[in-house]
């Protein structure tokens, strides 16, 4: 165990998997000579050379599709999108090729590719650079989606994704890259895809969430604890496949749930989870499952507007209070 940053954890995962398997390579804009726009691939060009760490032109559709083709014939590409915002341009290759080739070929052609990069908002990056793109990746079957919230999860999930035989989107967070945490040194440390993680236990209400929002949920839990409310925080970690067992166990215990996500609500991840909870644990619910998300507008630039549009700790606390039918602040 060492305390390292989320960025270093991703870097270690890439390095270790590249050492382990020559078929693994990293491709994307600025990943090689520049060490990555967010420095996730720092030092990898030096260690592995430009055969395996490949700077690409700004051609998201092209290089994502190239990766998909390479994956079909034996390589294990890791395709970095500088941010997932730019990957709308590549979506056809993700959904119409990567996600379908195995099925359409009746199991003949695997597509073991990883798409990774930061997702969601950072600081004042405006409408085009602040989007949470989970929905576009989870809706169609054929792709897996993971959203590590901590350095350990980042390392373990990225390693699992690279070893996985399906396309996996690893959605990181720009604001997480500098976060520190304990990470196992073991070269074979893996966080299995499809396992949620109870990041905090509690009996009164479940906040279910994923990605960067886990930390907002934990702050809300701390706040509520001071008011005597015990919050359980369930981090999905993996959105597809989905660990409903852990989600349902938590809801059956607390009887109340709030879904928190960074992105938009309409057909968001929260919509899916909330509807599944009420489908499968209807009688266990003492209150509706509420959802907290970004305001339903393109993210504005101005700092005050951006903060206002975000799903804040206060909004989460308020939602918890609502499902607990309490007024909050001890009132």
């Amino acid at each position, binding site marked *: 165990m060492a305390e390292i940053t989320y960025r270093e954890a991703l870097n270690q995962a890439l390095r270790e998997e590249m050492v382990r398997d020559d078929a693994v*390579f990293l491709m994307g804009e600025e990943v090689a000579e520049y060490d990555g726009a967010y420095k996730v691939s720092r030092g990898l060009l030096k260690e592995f050379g430009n*055969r395996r760490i490949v700077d*690409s*032109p700004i*051609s998201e*559709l*092209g*290089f*994502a*599709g*190239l*990766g*998909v*083709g*390479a*994956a*079909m*014939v*034996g*390589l294990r*590409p890791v395709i970095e999108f500088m941010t997932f915002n730019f990957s709308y341009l590549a979506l*056809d*290759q993700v959904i*119409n*090729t990567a996600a379908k*080739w*195995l*099925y*359409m*070929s*009746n*199991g*003949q*052609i*695997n597509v*073991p590719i990883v798409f990774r990069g930061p997702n969601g908002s950072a600081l004042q990056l405006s409408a085009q650079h602040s989007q949470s793109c989970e929905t576009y990746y989870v809706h169609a*079957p*054929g792709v*897996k989606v993971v959203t590590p919230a901590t350095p350990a999860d980042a390392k373990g999930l990225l390693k699992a994704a690279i070893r*996985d*035989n*399906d396309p996996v989107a690893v959605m990181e967070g720009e604001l997480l890259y500098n976060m520190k945490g304990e990470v196992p040194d073991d070269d074979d440390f893996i966080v*299995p*895809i*499809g*396992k*949620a993680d109870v990041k905090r236990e509690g009996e009164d209400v479940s906040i279910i969430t994923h990605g960067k929002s886990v930390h907002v949920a934990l702050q809300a839990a701390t706040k509520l604890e001071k008011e005597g409310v015990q919050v359980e925080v369930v981090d999905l970690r*993996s959105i*597809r*496949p*989905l*660990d*409903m*067992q852990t989600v349902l166990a938590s809801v059956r215990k607390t009887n109340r749930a709030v879904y928190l996500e960074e992105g938009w609500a309409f057909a968001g991840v929260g919509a*899916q989870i909330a509807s*599944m909870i009420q*489908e499968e644990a209807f009688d266990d619910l003492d209150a509706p499952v509420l959802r907290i998300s970004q305001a339903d507008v393109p993210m504005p630039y101005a700092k005050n507007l951006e903060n206002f549009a975000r799903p804040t700790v206060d909004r989460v606390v308020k939602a918890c209070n609502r499902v607990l039918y309490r007024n909050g602040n001890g009132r």
Partner: protein
Amino acid sequence: MAETKTATKKGPATRDDMSGDPLNGVAPETALRLMRNMLLFRRFEEKAEEGYAIGKIGGFCHLHIGQEAVAAGSIGVLRADDYVISAYREHTQALAKGISPKAIMAELYGRADGCSGGRGGSMHLFDASKGFMGGNGIVGGQIPTATGFAFAIKYKKGDQVSLCFLGDAAINQGAFHESLNLAAVWKLPVIYAVENNGYGMGTAFRRVSAREVKDRGDGYGIPCHRVNGQDVIETYTFFSKLVETVRAGGGPQYVDVRTYRFKGHSMSDPVSGTYRSKEEVDKRVEQDDPIRMLRERLFEAGVMDQEALEAMDNEVRAEVNEAAEFADASPVPDPANLYQHAYATINEHGRLFVDGREDAPRARDEES
């Protein structure tokens, strides 16, 4: 045969080497193989047309009749471990790469013995073991994929070639542009063969491009070629050289393969009427039938006579009939396997499928 009636017409077949050899130096057995392949392709497509008419085949179905020489003359020079990927008009290309008529016909029929298990249909034929990597129904979608095969070949220091078919209309897609640039920058062993039949559905190429197909390859730093795709000897000779060039490290190539579609775009599109006249089609069918053109060469070279051709044709017809019988006898896919192959393993930690159906595979952990 349909082309018998034009047996006396002289086609525009080329004699490159001036030797007077009607086969232009191509070995007689090779020429005969090309003939057999093209006949097989033609009869197969006719059978597919029949199958569609009687409702055995559904969905979209695009025939390659008229364009057989392109598949025979290009894929015919490849090794088994070379890769081919195409769009949706790919029956004959799949045959050329070695998938059996049975497996393809069964696929068109939507049966379990189809080369895609009945899941793909006409537009999505696969046999990875033979290097046939699919039909992509999204115009231009296969171009980055083919580029990826070439990237992998170079990465693994192999000497295979990736052959990508695309239609003339596909070159207006961004995927074309991005791929050609990537291939040029990294000098990848890929051939972009544009089957230039002059139309994308009902749209003549000249209506949607200010320059010709060959010229549209300018700008990337990739050699641009043009070949008469109706003449299988020319096509074969050309691709023989080109594939060797690429295998030897010559980098990406772009080819304007001139050809013509004798049938409608798909089964619902009439052969002529709206966007091309009956006269145009008739003239091209008469002048540019690849089978007739090769037949003339073979007859002239004395390698084959009418009798031998008819015997070959009968053989091929029998093979195609057998394929249809095989397809018809093949069972429909088992719905119990509906979820299989949506992912490599359908029984994972966590639920992969959330449609709430009882038959959907559950998560590994939930079962225990």
